[in-house]
C-alpha cells in the first residue's frame, strides 16, 4: 500500500472515520489499529512482526529504565546493561536485515527510520531526558504510527510529535490543511519528480552517448527529482498526520536557499541530521576519550587549532554513519558523507584565503546577489555528491564524471536544440515540467521569506476569499490528475527514500 495510491487514500479516510467516531479518550485505539493494519498490508507479515516486536520492546525498556527501581545511583550498572541490550537489538536488526542481510530477504518496511527513533528513545529514557511519565501509547506511536513508516520523520519522545498520544477533537481546519499538504506533495511527486526521473533514467542508462552539457543537466535534474520525491513524500506524511490533529516534525526547510553545505544539511532531512548530532556527534565529542585527545592536541598545536582534529574526527564518524545509513555501499558513504565532509573541512581551512579575496576585491556579502551566488555554489556541491547517490555504484559514478570531462560536442546533446527530445520527454512534458518548476520555485521563495516573518503560505491562503481558495485547490487537483505521471509504465508508488 503505497502513499500515492487509491488504496492508501481509502485506508486513510476509513481510519479517520473510525478515529473521529470513537470517544476522544480512546481515539488512540484507532491509530494503533490503523498502524497495525497498514503495516500488515504494506510490509507483510515479517514487517508487522518486526515492528510489533520493537513497539513492545520499546515500551518495556523505556518503562523499566524510567522505573523507581533504577532511580538512584545504586543500580546504575544494571541500568546500563538494560540500555546496552536495548541498543544492541536494533543495531543487530539493522545489520541483519539491511546491511549484511545473510538470508537475502527484503528488509522489513521502515526499519531504517523507526529504529533510529527507537534508539534515540532508548537513549533519552536511559539518560533521564524524559521528565514526564512515559505513556505506553505515546511510546508505541512514536515508533509505529503508520504515516511515518515510509520515510520517517525520525521523532523524539517529548520533544516533537508531542501530541501524538492524546485524542484530538475533529477540526475542519486540520482536515483542510492536511488535504492541502497531501495535494502539494502529490503535485511535487507526480508532476515534477516523475518527469525528472525520465530524464535522469535516460541519461544514466547510457552516459557515454550524451554530451557533457546533458550529463551535467541530468545531475541537477536528479537533485530536483530527489527533492520533490522526498519532500513530496514528507508533505503527504505530515498532511496525513495533520488530519488526525497530530503535528509531526518537518524534514525540509527550503534547503536550496542555504548559503553553505552545513546549512544545507540543517535544512534537508532535518530529523536525521538532528539525530546524528544529538546521539552520535555530541556524545562522541563529549566523551572522556575525546576530551583527552583534545587536550593533547591543544598542548601540541596550540589553543586555537587544537580543537580541530577532534572535531573533524567526530564529523568523520557522523558523516560516515549518514552515508552508511543510506545503504552501506561506497557510493552513499562518499556521495552523501565524505564528499560533504571534505567540502566543509576545506571550506573552513581555506576561509582565511577566501576572506582575503573578499577584502581585496571589496566583495559585499550582505546582499541578495551574493546570497544567490552562495546558494548556487551550495547547489553545485550538492549535485556532485548526489550524482554518486544516483549512480549504480561508486565506480559507475566515477565513470559518469569521466564522461563529463571527455564527452565534448560529438555526442547528442546540445541544450536548446532538437536533441532535448533524446532525454525521453516530449514537448508537452517538458513544458509541464518547466511550468511546475516555476510554481515550485515561487512557492519556495514565498516559504523562505515567510519563514523569517513567522507566517506561512497556507496562512496566506486561509486569508483569501472562498472563491480564490477553491480555485487554487481545483486547479491543483486537476493538474495532478491530468499532468501527473501515474498508471501503467510509471511507478509513482515508489519513493526513493522508501528503500532506506
Amino acid at each position: 500500500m503505497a502513499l500515492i495510491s487509491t488504496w492508501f487514500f481509502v485506508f486513510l479516510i476509513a481510519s479517520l472515520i473510525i478515529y473521529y467516531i470513537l470517544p476522544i479518550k480512546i481515539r488512540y485505539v484507532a491509530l494503533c489499529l490503523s498502524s497495525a493494519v497498514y503495516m500488515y498490508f504494506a510490509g507483510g507479515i515479517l514487517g508487522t512482526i518486526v515492528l510489533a516486536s520493537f513497539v513492545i520492546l520499546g515500551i518495556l525498556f523505556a518503562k523499566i529504565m524510567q522505573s523507581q527501581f533504577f532511580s538512584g545511583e545504586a543500580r546504575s550498572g544494571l541500568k546500563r546493561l538494560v540500555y546496552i541490550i536495548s541498543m544492541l537489538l536494533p543495531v543487530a536488526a539493522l545489520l541483519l536485515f539491511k546491511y549484511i542481510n545473510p538470508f537475502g530477504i527484503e528488509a522489513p518496511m521502515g526499519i531504517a527510520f523507526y529504529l533510529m527513533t527507537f534508539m534515540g528513545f532508548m537513549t533519552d529514557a536511559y539518560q533521564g531526558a524524559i521528565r514526564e511519565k512515559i505513556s505506553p501509547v505515546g511510546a508505541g506511536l512514536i515508533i509505529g504510527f503508520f504515516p511515518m513508516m515510509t520515510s520517517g520523520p525520525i521523532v523524539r519522545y517529548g520533544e516533537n510529535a508531542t501530541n501524538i498520544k492524546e485524542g484530538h477533537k475533529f477540526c475542519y481546519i486540520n482536515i483542510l490543511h492536511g488535504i492541502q499538504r497531501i495535494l502539494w506533495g502529490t503535485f511535487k511527486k507526480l508532476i515534477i519528480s516523475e518527469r525528472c526521473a525520465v530524464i535522469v533514467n535516460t541519461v544514466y542508462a547510457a552516459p557515454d552517448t550524451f554530451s557533457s552539457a546533458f550529463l551535467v543537466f541530468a545531475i541537477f535534474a536528479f537533485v530536483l527529482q530527489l527533492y520533490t520525491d522526498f519532500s513530496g513524500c514528507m508533505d503527504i506524511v505530515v498532511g496525513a498526520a495533520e488530519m488526525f490533529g497530530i503535528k509531526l516534525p518537518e524534514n525540509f526547510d527550503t534547503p536550496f536557499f542555504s548559503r553553505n553545505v552545513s546549512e544545507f544539511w540543517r535544512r534537508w532531512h532535518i530529523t536525521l541530521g538532528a539525530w546524528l548530532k544529538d546521539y552520535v556527534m555530541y556524545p562522541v565529542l563529549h566523551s572522556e576519550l575525546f576530551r583527552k585527545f583534545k587536550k593533547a592536541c591543544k598542548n601540541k598545536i596550540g589553543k586555537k587549532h587544537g580543537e580541530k582534529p577532534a572535531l573533524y574526527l567526530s564529523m568523520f564518524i557522523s558523516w560516515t554513519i549518514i552515508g552508511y545509513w543510506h545503504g552501506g555501499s561506497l557510493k552513499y558513504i562518499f556521495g552523501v558523507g565524505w564528499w560533504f565532509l571534505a567540502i566543509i573541512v576545506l571550506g573552513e581551512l581555506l576561509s582565511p584565503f577566501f576572506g582575503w579575496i573578499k577584502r581585496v576585491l571589496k566583495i559585499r556579502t550582505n546582499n541578495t546577489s551574493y546570497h544567490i551566488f552562495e546558494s548556487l555554489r551550495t547547489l553545485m556541491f550538492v549535485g556532485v555528491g548526489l550524482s554518486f547517490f544516483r549512480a549504480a555504484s561508486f565506480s559507475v559514478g566515477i565513470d559518469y564524471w569521466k564522461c563529463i570531462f571527455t564527452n565534448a560536442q560529438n555526442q547528442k546533446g546540445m541544450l536548446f536544440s532538437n536533441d532535448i527530445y533524446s532525454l525521453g520527454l516530449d514537448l508537452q512534458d517538458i513544458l509541464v515540467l518547466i511550468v511546475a518548476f516555476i510554481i515550485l520555485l515561487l512557492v519556495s521563495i514565498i516559504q523562505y521569506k515567510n519563514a523569517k516573518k513567522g507566517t506561512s503560505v497556507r496562512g496566506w491562503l486561509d486569508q483569501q476569499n472562498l472563491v480564490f481558495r477553491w480555485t487554487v485547490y481545483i486547479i491543483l487537483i486537476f493538474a495532478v490528475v491530468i499532468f501527473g505521471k501515474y498508471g501503467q509504465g510509471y511507478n509513482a508508488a515508489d519513493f526513493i527514500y522508501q528503500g532506506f
Partner: protein
Amino acid sequence: MSRQEILDSVNSVFREVFDRDEITVNEETTAADVEGWDSLRHITLIEAIEDEFDMRFKMNEVTGMKNVGEMLDIIAERI
C-alpha cells in the same frame, strides 16, 4: 557563588570561545541570538564552561538546554 557571579563568569567564557569582546549574554539568550553559536561551537562552549566551573553536564543537558538561564540552573546546582 551568586547567580550574577556565575553569569559574569559565563560571559567571560563566551567572549573567549567566540573571540569577541562585545558579547554579553543574559538569562534569556538562545543560540539564535549569538552569531556563530552553531552546533559545533556549542560543544566547545560547553566544555569551556565545564572547565571553568569544574563540573560536568549530562549528555541530555548538552542537547536539551533551551537558553542561558537553563545553563545557569545546571551550573548553580552543581558547584
